[in-house]
Each structure stands twice: as C-alpha cells, then as structure tokens.
C-alpha cells in the first residue's frame, strides 16, 4: 500500500507544482495593453448594462468605485453553474454542466475525506454509529461521493459521445482530447464500480485518507490494507488524473482567473506617476526585432524608439 500512497503524494505534488509554475509564469508576463470587454462586473452601478467609468465626465478627476459584490454575482454562477455556457450554448451546457459540477462535488469529496481522515486519526468515530461531526461526515461523504461520481461519469461519457458523434465537434477534437475524456471515463468508471461493489460507504477510501494524513507508509495493521484492490485502482487512477489536469488545457480551472481579472475586466487606468506607468515605462524599453520594412527592428531599437520614429519605407 505504500506504493499507492507514494503515487498520491507525488501526484498531489505534481498538481501543486504545475499550478504554481503556471501561475507564476503567467503572473510574470509583462503588462499588456488594456483589452477589456464589457460588461465589466465590478463597475459599480453600471455593470448591469455594461457601462464603464468612461461614461463619467472628466472621469480622471473622480474616484472610481469598484464592486466586489458585482464580481461575485458574476463569478459564482459562472464557476458553479457555468452560466456563460448556459446562456450562450444551452445544448452544450446539458453535456458539460454535469461533468463540471460532478468534478466540483468530487473536489468536495476529497475535502470531506481529508476531514474524515484527520478526525479518525484524532480518535473521532466517523461512521454510521458515530455522533455529531463524525456522523455528518460519514453520511455527507457518500452522498457527495455518489452524486459527484454519477454526474462526472455521465458528463464525461456525454462529452465523449458528443465529440465522437457530432461532426462539428469531432472535427475539432484531437487524439489527445479523446484520451483526456477517456481518462476521466476510466478513472470515474473504476471508482463507480468500486463503490457499488466493494466500498459502498466510502469506508475504504477514508481508511486510506487516514494513512494519507498521518503519513503512514506502512501497511501492517492499517485498515486500508484490508480493502479490495479496486480501492487501490480507484486511488491510483484518481491521483494520476489530478496530476494530469494542470498539465493540459484543463488548467483553465485556475487560469480563467487571469482571463477574467487581467483581461476581460482589466480596466485599471494608467495614472501619471502610478505603478502602471512605471511598468509601461519598462516595456517601452524592450528591444524590437520585427523585420518588416516599416519597422526594421534590429534588436536594439526599442518600442519607444519605434513609436517616436517615422515610417522609413512603404511595404511592397
């Protein structure tokens, strides 16, 4: 069982590292020009019709008001319910919503299992015979677990079917995309079979999480060691899947934050002497090497040089 635990630890580390590396890489990219798209949800009093502070006379003299509640009003339904797909592509929503919501529930399942593992390790009884928090965790774990597995499995099968049988989707689907969906189907399918047949109350999984949170690599006497091999299969596949997701385009689960906050809603104006101006000053000094005749970047001329220079020659 030590191997299974190691797979999980390594997978978790890969997940965290992959997210971190990508997050840092994106964060370190230079400032870009403004490219916002309305409605911008934090525009207080204007977001509902898509207005901006640019509607205000001499806006640069006024205090800009931003609304966190406005952002949350858009973000929460967007994240939880995929409101954008629901609004703009209802048919696809029927396929993708179960998948995504199932995954959210499964993320919740991991939290419940971790909590159950910690409590069990601390001597609290997490079972149908327990009390209070232990009892609540016991019941909520399998309820959330079954709901998550069912929705995610159905959703991934539905998406796989859509990408296989709908020509519009098939033409844009690569072998890698099929692999991704198959990976979900297999991992979720194994998990489903395991819980239906061998671990109906998620007791085996929780036993594993006890070992996981106590860093107990030994198998002797551990409750998890008594569990059927399907539990191990479920854990290994799920661990690998968790490690795999941030290495693919599915990392949109967190990069979406940049796409919304930095780009779509990135309306922060450049104020003289401010932080943005400082950053712009830096990038204007980047060297340019574009070769077209009207630029003739030689790797030495900067953007500031180009912006203040005349066009030397017309293009052909």
């Amino acid at each position: 069982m030590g191997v299974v635990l190691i797979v999980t630890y390594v997978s978790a580390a890969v997940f965290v590292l992959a997210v971190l590396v990508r997050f840092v890489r994106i964060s370190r990219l230079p400032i870009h020009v403004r490219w916002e798209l309305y409605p911008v949800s934090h525009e207080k009093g204007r977001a509902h019709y898509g207005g901006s502070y640019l509607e205000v006379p001499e806006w640069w003299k006024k205090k800009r008001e931003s609304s966190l509640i406005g952002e949350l009003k858009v973000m929460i339904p967007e994240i939880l319910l995929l409101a954008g797909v629901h609004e703009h592509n209802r048919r696809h929503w029927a396929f993708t919503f179960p998948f995504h919501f199932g995954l959210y529930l499964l993320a919740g399942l991991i939290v419940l299992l971790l909590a159950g593992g910690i409590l069990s390790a601390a001597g609290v009884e997490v079972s149908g015979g327990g009390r209070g928090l232990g009892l609540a965790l016991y019941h909520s774990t399998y309820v959330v677990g079954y709901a998550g597995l069912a929705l995610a499995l159905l959703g991934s099968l539905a998406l796989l079917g859509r990408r296989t049988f709908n020509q519009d989707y098939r033409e844009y689907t690569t072998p890698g995309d099929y692999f991704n969906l198959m990976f979900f189907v297999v991992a979720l399918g194994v998990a489903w079979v395991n819980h239906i047949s061998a671990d109906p109350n998620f007791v085996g999984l929780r036993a594993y999480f006890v070992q996981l949170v106590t860093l107990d690599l030994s198998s002797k006497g551990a409750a998890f060691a008594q569990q059927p091999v399907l539990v191990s299969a479920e854990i290994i596949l799920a661990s690998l899947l968790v490690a795999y997701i941030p290495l693919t385009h599915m990392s949109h689960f967190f990069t979406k934050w940049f796409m919304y906050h930095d780009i779509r809603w990135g309306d922060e104006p450049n104020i003289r002497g401010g932080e943005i101006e400082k950053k712009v000053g830096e990038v204007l000094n980047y060297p340019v090497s574009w070769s077209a005749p009207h630029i003739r970047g030689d790797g030495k001329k900067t953007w500031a040089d180009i912006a203040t220079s005349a066009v030397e020659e017309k293009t052909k």
Partner: protein
Amino acid sequence: MTKRRVSIEDISRPSERLSELRKEDFKPLPEPFDKTESTPDFKPLSDKAKDQYESSLDDTIAVSIPKPKSKEEERVLIEKFLSGMEKLFTKENNWTFLQPLLLSMDHCAKCHTCSEACHIYEASGQNPIYRPAYRSEVFRRLYKNFIESNGSPLTAWRSGKVDLNWTTLARLIELAYRCNLCRRCAQTCPIGVDNALIAHEIRKVFSQELGIAAKEIHDDGSVLQLKVGSSTGMNSVVVKDNIEFIDEDVSEMTGIKVETPWDKEGADILLIHNAGEIMSWPMNPGAFGVIFETAGLNWTMSSEIAGYDSINYGVWYDDAQFARVAVKHAQAAKKLKVKKIVLGECGHAHKALTVIADRVLTGDLNIPRESCMVTLEGLIFSGKVKVDPSRNDFPVTLHDPCNLVRLMGIVEPQRRILRHIAPRFREMEPHGVYNYCCGGGSGFAIMSGHNFGDWRAQIAGRKKLEQILNAFKDELDPSIKKYVCAPCSNCKGQLRDLFSYYDLWEKHSIMYDGLVELIVNCMTDAKPGFIEWEWH
C-alpha cells in the same frame, strides 16, 4: 447550411477554393428582402485577379497578396512567417498582447459557443471556415507544432496538426481579414478565449514581419496618415480650407456663427474628428462646431500631423503603426497644452486613444481623453444646448459601434441623449454591449477591392441589415423617413455601402448619420431643417 464540410487540415490542401460562397446558403433576410433574389449576385473575381493574387480561401480577396513566383519564394515566405510567429510569442516583441494571446492559445475547449455569437458565421449560413475558432485552431496548431515544440509526434497527438505550406499561410492571412474584430465571440466564451484577438495577432505577424497587410489600412491608411497628417490625404492646409467651407455652410444653415478655432494654445478641449467625416459627411464636424460654439466651449482643432485625424488603423493590424499614431495624437494635444482631448464620432479612434494607448502614453503625453458622447450629454442636460425634440419626430434607431460600447463600456450617454431628443427612438435587438457589428469593423468599411464590397454587404453586414429592418419593420413604408443613428465614421461608411447595396434609401427611406446631426436638427437656437434627407 453550407453543404460542404471543411476540416482544419483542409486549409493546407491546395485547391481552387477552400469554401464556396453561395447566396442560397446565406441566412435569409427579413421581409421584404426574404427572397434569395433580393440579395444581389456576388460579383465573381476576375481571371486577372485570380491569376495575380492569392484567392484560394473563398470567393473574394481582402489582402491582395501577389502569388509567389517560385517554390523558393514560397519557402522564404514560410520561413519569415515562422520567424514572425516566434517573435509574436516573445515578451520583447509582443508585450502588448502576450498574456492574452498565450491564454487564448492554451485554453480553448473547442465547445463552439463562440460560433453562435459571430454574425459572419451566422450570416454565411454557418460556413465552417468562418467559425471564429477555425482560424484560431489553425494558428494554434501551427504554434503548438512549430513554435512551442519541434513538431514532435506527441504534440501532434495532443494538439492536432496542420501542414505548414504556402497554401496554409495564404489562406490564413485572408481568414484573418474575414473577422471584424468585434469580439462578440470573446464575450460569450465561457473560458475567456478571444478568437478576435487571435485574428488580430495573425494580422500582426504578417504585417510586422512580412510587411503584408491590406493596402487600404496600411499604405493608404496609417502610412499616409503619418506622412501627410491624414489617411484622407488632406494636409493641414487642405483640412483648414475644408473646415472653413463647412463652417460657412453650417453657419448659413443654422444661423449660428461657427468659426472653428485652430491651434489655440491653452484651450480646454482638443477636438479630433475622424477626417473621413470632413470629406464624406461634412455636416458632422459642422454640427460639432455648432454645438460647441453654442455652448461657449473653449475648444480647438489641431493642424499638426495626425492632430486633425483621429483614426488609428494600427489598432487592427500593427502595434508599431498603432503606437506611432497614438503618440502623434498625444503630441498634438501636448503642444497645445489642452486640458483634454475629446474624440469625435469614431469608434475605433475612441478605443485606440482612450483604452489601448492608455498603456503606451506616459508622462506628459498621458493627456486625459473623453468621449464626445459624454461631452455632448453634459451640454444637453446642463441646458447649455437647448433642444426641441418635436423637430426630430421621425423613427430613429441606434447602431452601437462595437469599439465604443462593447470594448469601452460607453453605453448610456448616447441613449440618454436620444431618449431626450428623439421621441420615436427605438432600440435594435440586441443592443448595447451585446450589439452586432455593422460589418465594417477592423478596416472593412474602407476595403472594397476586387469584390470584397460584395462580401461585406452580403455577409459581414447581413446581420446589421436584419437588425435595422426589424427595428423599422412596422414603418418600412417609404413615405416615412427613418434615421439610423451611427455615431462612428467607419460604421457610417459601412452603412452607406450597405444601404446603397440594398437600395434602402430608395425603397424604404432609411437614412443613416451621426448623433450630432440629430442634436443640431432639434436645437432651438438653430434654424430648423439641419437634416436634409438627401442620400449621401
């Protein structure tokens, strides 16, 4: 539905055309244009054009790329493209858009939500090559296989593959000019992928590395503007003469003395028009003069290079040209020590100078910019300009310029004005930030080479035509004069061509023009009848 399917990989397969345009496939228009015959025939490309230029995408040409004369020439072009693409993904050469571009490259879920939002895809009868994701997916595969990795089988397996040959590139650049860059697709993307941005970046690679761009926006556009001061070709002497004539005309028409101040140092406002207004719709700058003089504003125009022409075509295809023009605009304002720049009725100029240039102009070049919509609203509701709405007692609808509305969030000022001055104002559906592009966006309004004008009117402008007909559906009778208020010079150029193409003025008395004309038409200080209802 277009019968023939086109796969991503087909873009590399040489053929006479990747996709055929047939008007029976196009989305039907509302009555009375609902019959296929109501759409004029698509003028075929001449044999000479087909021999001379790359035309293997569809049935039209936007960029007029001369066909390479040899395989060697093709090889050089491909190498240059790859070199440009590599530069596009470096922070030094593309800090301007690197982060949005990379995120759009890496995260498309290929859910096709964007397709339904695109007026070009819809109007064409869902032609597969006009899906917003089609060109993006081609570009993404090129990036993944040739830039991000060295064409490993694993990359092809993960990301798909497209052969890189001259056919691919010739079609790709044309495809980048089958998008209005209106970003309606990006608005609906649940992840935030921006296919319009990708079209924009493809244009940049070709312009900034290969020197290939549509002639109308580069040679005759930004290059000419930087050389003589305006893409119209007007130098400072000519523009002053023209404005003088316009001042005389509007003074006579309204009874309000207008004498446009030029190069007035220390003025509160530097007003910059799209100079196309001065040439094609002179009553627009004239109306501004009437309003500003009536309100007693301390304003000026500038005769500096680009100081009297707010256009900045670089925003559609080239960061270097964009930056040069933005700096010229700011320098003109700096020289006159004005308190703010007010942009006239031009959507892309608004966005270029106010939003995009916000992270180009620093220090004393960062002079405040304000939309004329905001300025005008202040003048009307403060009572400085008095109006009698009954003079505008005819059906009016509003076209929302994408750059002004979806891309800047200036939505309500123009509406508040219209609700106040036009008693029969009605909205198009959808409107505001969810509007549809007129079909002239991203430079198309000034591009009519070969048969591109047909494409613009039949496909790019089709959705807008549908919206306009629907807005006036109960009043299409030609005895009722109707007004489409389009506060944007490029949009007006497109509407002029679109209306003319379908004879909307002759058949249904549907006219287009700006917002200031409507204001002056109902100003109590002005003589009535500023709007003359003559086709122009």
